């Protein structure tokens, strides 16, 4: 259900943006003077029309977002990331050794900053960056063939320290909904570019040492940090409360997701899920739109001088 809602979110935003554009088009049409159809009548020409007065700017209406732009800065907690596994296999004494590392789903903390510029009514475009990192204890298990006997593998298992970091560039279309002068809700969505850095086991990274009689196997895990960039998507909502005209605090919730296929030489790439549910909170800064210039009152004409001589 949650996924369905999230999936419709960008559609809804697009619809809102489309409606807004359509309305603007209607308004522009109404402002145009009627076009001439040619000299049909011979009535004396009217004096040339004077240049129409500029259309007064649309008065802000209730519900319009009037800020010029915004900057959100958040501390971030990312939860709901997916666990993933890294399978490996390699030939070992006429059989196949198999192993799998399991990387658990854990929360991550990080930083998020985004900014936007309102381009039309309540619609803004912007960009942001999200950085999170986590340290986990990954587990491995494997089946290592006995060098001397068929089908008598030694089972191995253990843990190793693993780390993960994500840097995401988020492009956003945002729709601001000022609930009150101090309270602003912003819905946003857009593509994200994730750069994932993940600790993975190297090819045949389960370094097996087994001495005679080979009834046990000592495993040394060799790990490596691998990076991969992936495209994903993110959408969420932000609620801000402003103490003043420009500064406030707010909270944000977002779901972002991408899968980075981290390559491992000679082995299947590892599909590392990035993103998750992100909850953040922090500073809010909005930039008010410039006020329209006051009309200039013409200076009163000086009274004509009387000639008394």
């Amino acid at each position, binding site marked *: 259900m949650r996924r369905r809602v999230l999936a419709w979110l960008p559609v809804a935003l697009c619809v809102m943006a489309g409606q807004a554009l359509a309305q603007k088009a209607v308004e522009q049409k109404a402002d145009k003077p009627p076009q001439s159809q040619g000299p049909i009548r011979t009535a004396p020409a009217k004096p040339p029309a004077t240049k129409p007065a500029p259309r007064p700017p649309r008065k802000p209406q209730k519900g319009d977002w009037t800020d010029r732009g915004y900057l959100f800065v958040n501390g971030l907690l990312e939860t709901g990331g997916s666990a993933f596994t890294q399978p490996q296999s390699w030939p070992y*004494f*006429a059989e196949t050794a198999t192993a799998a590392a399991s990387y658990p789903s854990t929360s991550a903390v990080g930083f998020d900053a985004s900014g936007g510029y309102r381009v039309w009514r309540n619609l803004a475009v912007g960009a942001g960056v999200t950085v999170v990192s986590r340290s986990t204890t990954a587990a491995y298990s494997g089946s290592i063939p006995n*060098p*001397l*006997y*068929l089908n008598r593998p030694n089972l191995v298992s253990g843990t190793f320290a693993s780390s993960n970091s994500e840097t995401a560039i988020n492009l956003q279309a945002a729709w601001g909904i000022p609930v009150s002068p101090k309270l602003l809700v912003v819905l946003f969505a857009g593509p994200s570019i994730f750069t994932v850095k993940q600790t993975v086991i190297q090819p045949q990274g389960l370094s097996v040492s087994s001495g*005679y*009689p*080979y*009834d046990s196997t000592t495993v040394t895990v060799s790990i490596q940090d691998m990076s991969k960039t992936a495209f994903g998507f993110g959408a969420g909502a932000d609620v801000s409360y402003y103490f003043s005209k420009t500064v406030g605090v707010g909270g944000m919730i977002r779901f972002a997701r991408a899968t980075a296929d981290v390559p491992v030489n000679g082995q299947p790439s590892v599909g590392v899920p990035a993103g998750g549910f992100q909850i953040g909170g922090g500073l809010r800064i909005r930039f008010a739109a410039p006020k329209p210039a006051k009309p200039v009152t013409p200076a009163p004409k000086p009274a004509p001088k009387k000639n008394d001589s």
Partner: protein
Amino acid sequence: MKRTSRLIAVVSTLVVALGVLALAQRTGQGPTGASRMFPVPDQTVRDLDARLDAMESTHELRLRTTQIDTMVAGRRFERLDQYYKGVPVFGGEAVRETDGVATRSITSSLYNGIAIDTTPSVSPAAAADIFTTATGAHAWVPVNPQLVVLPRPDGRFVLAYRMSAVVGHSMPVVFVNAKTGAIERHYDNMQTQQPTALVGNGVLVGEGLVAADLKKVSCAVLGTSYTAQDLMRPISIKTYDLKGSFSRTESVVGGFTALATTDLASNTTSTWTDSVVADGHTYVGWTYDYFYTRDGWKGFDGNNVRSVSVIVHPVKRADLNTYNWSDVSDYYQNAFFCGQCGYHYEDVIVFGEGLPANYYLPDTGQYVDYFVAALSIVAHEYAHGVTTYTSNLIYQNESGALDEAFSDMMGVSANFYQRATTGSGMLQADYIVGKETFRPKQPGSVFGTRNIGNPAALGDPDHYSERYTGTDDNGGVHTNSTIASYAFYLAIEGGTDQTSGLSVTGVGAANRAQVERAFFRGFTTMTSNATFSMARAKTIQAARDLYGAGTAIETAITQAWTAVGVF
């Protein structure tokens, strides 16, 4: 028939456990080999130890080897040979078990009352000529005459030359009286399976002789081919393919020709194609693993010093009728361990080629396949090597039967250890020796060459009173062995001896390792002229040492020996 190894002189065999029991056996009491057990105070150990010390000080006893006890930490066994005026006394030995501080037990077969002149009248060369004449060996074959004091069956002692050589497919040991030139004693020391009558450096997979029996063949890369040289285990195990050349086999086993690298069995494909090599090479490794894991025993000598040379395809089946059968029979329907008989004094195990498909043994109606097909046979021959470097049992009469019994017991034990399932089928573990090699062909014939779980099934005795007392087969070493090996079976599985009617409560198959370890420890710490009675005492003592006095394992072993009539 009288046993040629019967000891008439004052020979005492003592197994004395510190503060517990001691067993004294007089092997000079006649063919019955009666013995008795009685409690002995600690003083007995100290007295006997003092006697050994005194004999060592006068060089009447000389330390031959020290063997680390692989089962009880801190223990070790010292083997001492008896000498008389600087001449070794054949069979005169003592085994002293110490814990680093005190002597824990002593097993001895020492001879008293020796009073002979040790100056030979017959020269070594003349003795060698007598050996050559008696055995048919080539005159140029070195026989290394060794002067010994030989105990005779009549209780007297004679000065004799002990000589031995590989002659054809036998290894006769002959004692020539150094005063008169008469042959005093002889036996064949070729330790055979049965009386003569059948994936880089790494491992390949090969199919064994039983169809679809895939196994890993530990091999080494040599040039562009793989060779059957095991580099994965702590000792060198090499399997040589003599490609059916009987003349070369004879020369190699006789120690005249060195095994060459080009003799190593080789393979050029990623799967080992010769099933005979795959089985033989692999099963020797499996046997090494069994002894290592079960008993902590490394190789033949316990220290990984001795390498293992395996010979397959010593003859060709198609050449069966080319030779004089008596010259080649062991290379077809037998397997044997030949200690230090290679050119470089290496230990050699030769596995027979089996018979052509249309042949069978007339006395048993069995077809005989390759001898490497049966793990129990391969382990049997390997165990002869262990015996050679431990108790070095004289391959004749009771000690020879114990040698065979030990090999059979270890053979089936290795099978139980390595096989995934038990049962009567191929590649399943049971108490039949050689099941995969000896297969029924004629109506009424059965599997195997011996059945230590039911000796009567193949005509072997299950009781001491039924033992063979003739001279054939070195005094029935392959027949009387089942008396001891059946005791081993009873101690594990329990049951009733059909001859004595006595029942045994076995420890059960789940505890077979206890019996295996007790028998290993007992049989590898005996003296070379051991008797069944000594084997009984040693295995019972081993059970006590390993598992404590009065335990079920001790009771089972005691009951088992009693059931088979050995006291």
